[in-house]
């Protein structure tokens, strides 16, 4: 009973073979059942996430959060879902109907599709394709397209502006994020997520802490969560690309966003925290699922922690931070990691880990120094603004006292 999923799969295979089906159809039926079970499970978790998110944000803001319906307000999201299902669905004037309806479907479906390659346990993994890491990037690209579709089809200026901002942000942060994914791929020499988890006898967050941090920042931006939530800057463009969506269509965007956050938590756990790895997870695969979800929830909590702690940045700051800081930094780390990995083939593993960690820490030290110097310079600039040129110079004594 250590591995119920494989047990059920084997039993099903035997049962279907008894019915006289060919092996091809059996694998199709097995895969289809797997997809349905995985999708439903993920969506059930998603409904639960509404409660988690509301409860956590309440705690951050020193409130209680939902606490009326059921124990600890656990049934609140169910009430939310029923409310959303019963709300009227408004299609705005001039909307491109088909694209308008397709966008929320894409928003949720692309997130569910991501789970196909994430290994939940040593035996429980949807697909072990040899391009898993890139598959995640590709599905993310379709999600970006969904946002642009929503913004365009709504026939609303705010929606289109929000979509443009969101897409500019997502594609910008995709560059450092993809390079950050490339580093675990180099360390594991495989793009299959199952292999990446399998080769993490030492968690990659130890070998590549900078890549982990950059991935986390990229994830935050990809999710459009604070400090990168420009697309839904309430005071400027109200709600961003989903401004015109009501009822369940808005609900799909909301569900997709929450699930996306958990998915990025899971991806972070897969790439850098050893995925399902943990004590006894190889012999008892069921434990692996537990470990994986604990790690994913911890990372989800970190993402929420960042979201509710930071103020929003300006769009120029956001893009400068990506292109002028994160991208050069992660390219440097990539080059050094690649060369060190090749040079150190054949050395004992603990030396390898130590050198990788040290090289990262050295880079981190210099980066922090440089950022500190830059921040000092910026502070001075703000503290001593340029003198305003006036057409008729007044007495010099007053102007100097103003400047100092």
């Amino acid at each position: 009973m250590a591995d119920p999923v494989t047990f059920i799969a084997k039993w099903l295979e035997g049962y279907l073979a008894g019915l006289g089906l060919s092996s091809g159809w059996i694998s199709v039926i097995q895969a289809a059942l797997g997809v349905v079970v995985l999708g439903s499970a993920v969506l059930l978790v998603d409904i639960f996430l509404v409660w988690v998110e509301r409860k956590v944000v309440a705690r951050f803001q020193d409130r209680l959060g939902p606490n009326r319906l059921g124990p600890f307000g656990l049934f609140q999201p169910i009430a939310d879902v029923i409310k959303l299902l019963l709300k009227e669905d408004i299609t705005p004037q001039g909307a491109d109907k088909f694209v308008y309806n397709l966008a929320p479907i894409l928003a949720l479906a692309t997130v569910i599709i991501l789970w196909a390659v994430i290994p939940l346990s040593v035996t429980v993994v949807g697909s072990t394709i040899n391009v898993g890491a890139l598959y995640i990037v590709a599905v993310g690209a379709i999600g970006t397209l969904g946002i642009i579709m929503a913004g365009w089809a709504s026939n609303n200026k705010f929606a289109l502006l929000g979509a443009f901002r969101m897409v500019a942000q997502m594609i910008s942060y995709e560059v450092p994020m993809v390079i950050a994914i490339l580093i675990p791929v180099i360390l594991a020499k495989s793009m299959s997520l199952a292999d990446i988890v399998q080769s993490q006898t030492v968690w990659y967050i130890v070998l590549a802490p900078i890549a982990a941090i950059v991935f986390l920042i990229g994830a935050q931006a990809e999710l459009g969560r604070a400090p990168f939530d420009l697309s839904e800057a309430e005071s400027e463009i109200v709600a961003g690309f989903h401004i015109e969506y009501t009822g369940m269509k808005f609900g799909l965007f909301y569900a997709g966003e929450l699930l996306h956050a958990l998915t990025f938590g899971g991806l972070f756990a897969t790439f850098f925290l050893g995925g399902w790895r943990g004590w006894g997870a190889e012999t008892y695969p069921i434990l692996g699922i537990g470990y994986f979800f604990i790690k994913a929830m911890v990372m989800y909590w970190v993402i929420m922690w960042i979201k509710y702690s930071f103020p929003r940045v300006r769009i120029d700051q956001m893009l400068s931070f990506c292109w002028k800081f994160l991208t050069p930094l992660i390219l440097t780390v990539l080059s050094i990691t690649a060369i060190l990995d090749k040079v150190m083939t054949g050395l004992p593993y603990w030396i390898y880990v130590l050198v990788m960690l040290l090289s990262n820490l050295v880079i981190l030290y210099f980066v922090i120094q440089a950022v500190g110097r830059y921040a000092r310079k910026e502070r001075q600039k703000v503290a001593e603004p340029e003198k305003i040129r006036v057409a008729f110079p007044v007495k010099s004594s007053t102007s100097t006292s103003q400047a100092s």
Partner: protein
Amino acid sequence: MLNDWLFIGLMLVIAPIFPIAALIIPRILAPKKPNPLKTQTYECGIETVGDTWVQFKAQYYNFALVFLVFDVEIVFLFPWAVAFNQLPLYGVIVGILFIEVLVIGLIYAWRKGILEWS
């Protein structure tokens, strides 16, 4: 090889069914009484002025351009990373050179002011 993709193919077909179902249920349950006032474009209560297609800042295009070039480069580093064990040291250096060529482009765009937002 193709068996690995079976799961993903089925996922592509089945995953959209969940949100589609969530959109069909309100069609049956929810009220539907649209009127011209209700379906107006939302702009904080003010009536919309002019076309939705306002002129956009060209900067959006700039960032997409730099992104496109970087994206292509990075994607083709992935096979290089997968083949890492079979590569000699110079193969690794050549792969890094491949991406460093683009850093010249990034520096150029930076100096040209393409990465500024103003």
